[in-house]
């Protein structure tokens, strides 16, 4: 018995130049905010961008971006709607405002289903907002998308970084490309995380200071791109391009 879906995933992603997974070992470090803002900035810079929320049990990019009243089109598969110039896909189109109580195997199945039926256009970047940790979604993406790259987010917290250290080591052991580590919610000038990242021999990308006003930008795309947070995310462009 063969699961036919995995055979078509390469074909579905064929017209996408780069696939970047925004990930972390811990939740609450700002992955979704970073993924959404980074996708918006790439779009503003003229790139063709897709954003895919893979945090199936706790999706939030639709709230960050204020996405409402859009649905994918059914056209020989699922065609994601274009939101603020980028193709946007989320399980939220189907779960709406209900919970998605999924176990690991269900997450895996839903991920494979969406990868095999979603028809992305020609894109320069597909940004993936990952669920926290090294779970089914991460393992499936490593298995199914050979050219995936990882952008890792941490905070200055030892707790967050300890999980990031393990994640980066695992990704390196598996010879997966790690673009680098971003330190989010920085409140002081300590360089502890930067030194730790250097020890891991992956690039330390940039520091995003804690933005006390970011909550006011949630759901408002224009406020979000003008935020201090977004200004600190923008230098990532150069890192990703290099």
């Amino acid at each position, binding site marked *: 018995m063969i*699961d036919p879906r995995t055979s078509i995933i390469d074909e579905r992603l064929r017209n996408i130049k780069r696939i970047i997974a925004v990930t972390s070992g811990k939740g609450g470090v700002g992955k979704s905010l970073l993924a959404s803002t980074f996708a918006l900035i790439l779009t503003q810079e003229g790139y063709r961008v897709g954003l895919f929320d893979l945090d199936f049990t706790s999706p939030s990019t639709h709230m960050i971006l204020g996405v409402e009243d859009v649905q994918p089109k059914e056209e020989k598969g699922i065609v994601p709607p274009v939101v603020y110039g980028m193709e946007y896909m989320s399980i939220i189109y189907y779960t709406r405002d209900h919970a998605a109580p999924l176990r690991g195997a269900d997450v895996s199945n839903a991920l494979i289903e969406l990868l095999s039926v979603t028809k992305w256009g020609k894109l320069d970047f597909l940004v993936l907002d990952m669920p926290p940790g090294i779970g089914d979604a991460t393992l499936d993406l490593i298995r199914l998308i050979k050219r995936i790259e990882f952008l890792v987010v941490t905070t200055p917290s030892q707790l967050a970084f300890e999980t990031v250290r393990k994640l980066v080591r695992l990704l390196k052991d598996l010879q997966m490309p790690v673009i680098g580590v971003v330190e989010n919610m920085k409140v002081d000038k300590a360089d502890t995380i930067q030194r730790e990242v250097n020890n891991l021999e992956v690039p330390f990308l940039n520091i995003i200071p804690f933005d006390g006003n970011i909550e006011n930008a949630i759901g408002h795309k224009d406020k979000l791109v003008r935020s201090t947070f977004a200004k600190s995310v923008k230098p990532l462009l150069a890192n990703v391009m290099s």
Partner: protein
Amino acid sequence: MHEWALAEAIISAATEAAEKQNLRQITEVNIRIGELQQVEPDILEFALSQLKSAKFENAKFKMESVKAQLKCRVCGYKWLFNKEGLSEETAEAIHFIPEIAHTYIKCPKCGSPDFEIVEGRGVWLESIKGVQ
């Protein structure tokens, strides 16, 4: 026409399987369709007929429907999926992503959404036959 995307996957998987078995021609493709996904066999068959390459010229696509059996992980109750009673929107959501069933369906006995899809989830390529 979401079935079209699934048909593309079947053709791709059957082609890969034929290459592994050194089959020049594929004569039979056996497909299992789980009822949870509510795939329309006629549409799937039409899509397969439109998508097939020369290798499938004489191929028969045989489809078997499999009842979707669900088993509650909390109380152990087993039941069969039935889309009656579900709104059109909900049935369609489950059609696109069968795991969405966990959002809208509960164990009829204890009310838990924590159930296992024992069988009959979606589309499987059971086997192919052909000539070398």
